[in-house]
């Protein structure tokens, strides 16, 4: 796969925001046509239980804006010092313009900065780190990386077959800075577009434009969102363990020296299998976040950090291996070091 080493970058702070509304799978009596035994079986193996969802007026950009404001306030960072903003999302405010431009204004950043969106899903946070760390080395001091999604709005993925909805919404803000003293960040990246249809929303783009018969009777739009569970699991078991081992080999860092493996919170079954395949002890590969907040797409990694290792990341030097994988199909693993950085923990919008 594509392997890169990027110097001169450090993460200074991470903040994460979730909506206040909580849904619990057991409260929905329509799932699996009312078969609670089947639902509990799925909950046990997948680990999903609760999730947070936005109301109809809140977008991923709103959650990310709040996360950035918390970061600025609590780290005492002036918005004027930000040289660029990257917004990673698959649920932007509009097709055009890029939501990053709107956020530049809302966050009162300078005009003399770059701003763009990145369309990436579960691999999105690590992708954002890769892009931002590369751009820092073009002569910039600070980049604000906003990563967020409101995937709960793709309801038709689950309503057609009454299966358990698993997506939770969240937004995050990460501050990256130029730092010549920091350890390099190592990346391992791969793409397989031949399996683009494993996870997708078919309708609404320009291949299948919006048409009048693509609406449910309640007025909601039918994205024709789909996810082939078996093929997803096949993909993760095929690519992710290799990506984790490859980035370790590339970096020369021993597996035992990694403090935490923070993976995209896909589901408990997948994460346990990856841990098993890679001989990673489960205490170093946490997955409790997914049961509390659902599969948060690109935001699952920063939320997992905020939720499960906040105290450690604020008080210790840590070597982390992050791995995001999913829609695309895309996968990206990275190894980085943090040194007692700011972390907001999980905050409510």
């Amino acid at each position: 796969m594509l392997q890169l080493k990027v110097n001169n970058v450090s993460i200074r702070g991470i903040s994460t925001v979730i909506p206040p509304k909580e849904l619990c799978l057991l409260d929905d009596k329509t799932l699996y046509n009312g078969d609670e035994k089947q639902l509990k079986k799925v909950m046990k193996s997948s680990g999903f239980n609760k999730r947070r969802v936005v109301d109809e007026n809140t977008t991923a950009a709103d959650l990310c804006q709040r996360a950035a404001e918390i970061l600025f306030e609590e780290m005492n960072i002036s918005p004027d010092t930000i040289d660029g903003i990257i917004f990673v999302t698959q649920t932007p405010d509009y097709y055009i313009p890029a939501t990053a431009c709107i956020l530049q204004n809302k966050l009162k950043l300078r005009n003399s900065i770059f701003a763009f969106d990145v369309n990436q899903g579960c691999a999105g946070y690590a992708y954002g780190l890769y892009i931002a760390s590369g751009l820092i080395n073009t002569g910039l001091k600070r980049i604000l990386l906003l990563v967020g999604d409101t995937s709960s709005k793709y309801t038709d993925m689950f309503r057609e077959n009454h299966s358990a909805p698993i997506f939770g919404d969240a937004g995050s803000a990460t501050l990256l800075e130029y730092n010549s003293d920091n350890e390099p960040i190592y990346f391992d990246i791969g793409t397989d577009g031949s399996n683009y249809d494993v996870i997708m929303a078919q309708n609404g783009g320009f291949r299948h434009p919006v048409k009048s018969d693509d609406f449910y009777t309640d007025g909601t739009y039918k994205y024709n969102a789909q996810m082939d569970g078996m093929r997803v699991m096949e993909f993760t078991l095929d690519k992710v363990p290799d990506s984790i081992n490859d980035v370790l080999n590339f970096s020369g860092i021993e597996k035992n020296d990694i403090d935490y493996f923070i993976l995209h919170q896909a589901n408990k079954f997948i994460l346990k299998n990856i841990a098993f395949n890679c001989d990673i002890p489960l205490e170093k590969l946490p997955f409790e976040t997914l049961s509390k907040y659902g599969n948060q797409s690109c935001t699952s990694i920063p939320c997992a950090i905020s939720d499960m290792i906040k105290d450690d990341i604020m008080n210790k030097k840590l070597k982390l291996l992050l791995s995001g994988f999913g829609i695309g199909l895309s996968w990206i693993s990275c190894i980085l070091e943090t040194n007692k950085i700011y972390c907001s923990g999980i905050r409510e919008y």
Partner: protein
Amino acid sequence: MKKDEFLQTMIDAIEIEEEINENTELENLEEWGSLAAVTTLALFNKFLGLKIPASEIKKAKTIGDILQLGGEKYD
């Protein structure tokens, strides 16, 4: 790894409680399903170094059909 050791590893990983053998039909096995199939793919990968497509496991009708996927990789 020997074939019977692989079978025992499968039994433990999928948490199969009843007595099974190579003739056991998968459709009669309560613990068999898509998660058990994916778990088995992971076992082939880890213990035999084999990456078997999900489509191959889907064709299996018996425990014996699954074990055959290990081919010559057993000790």
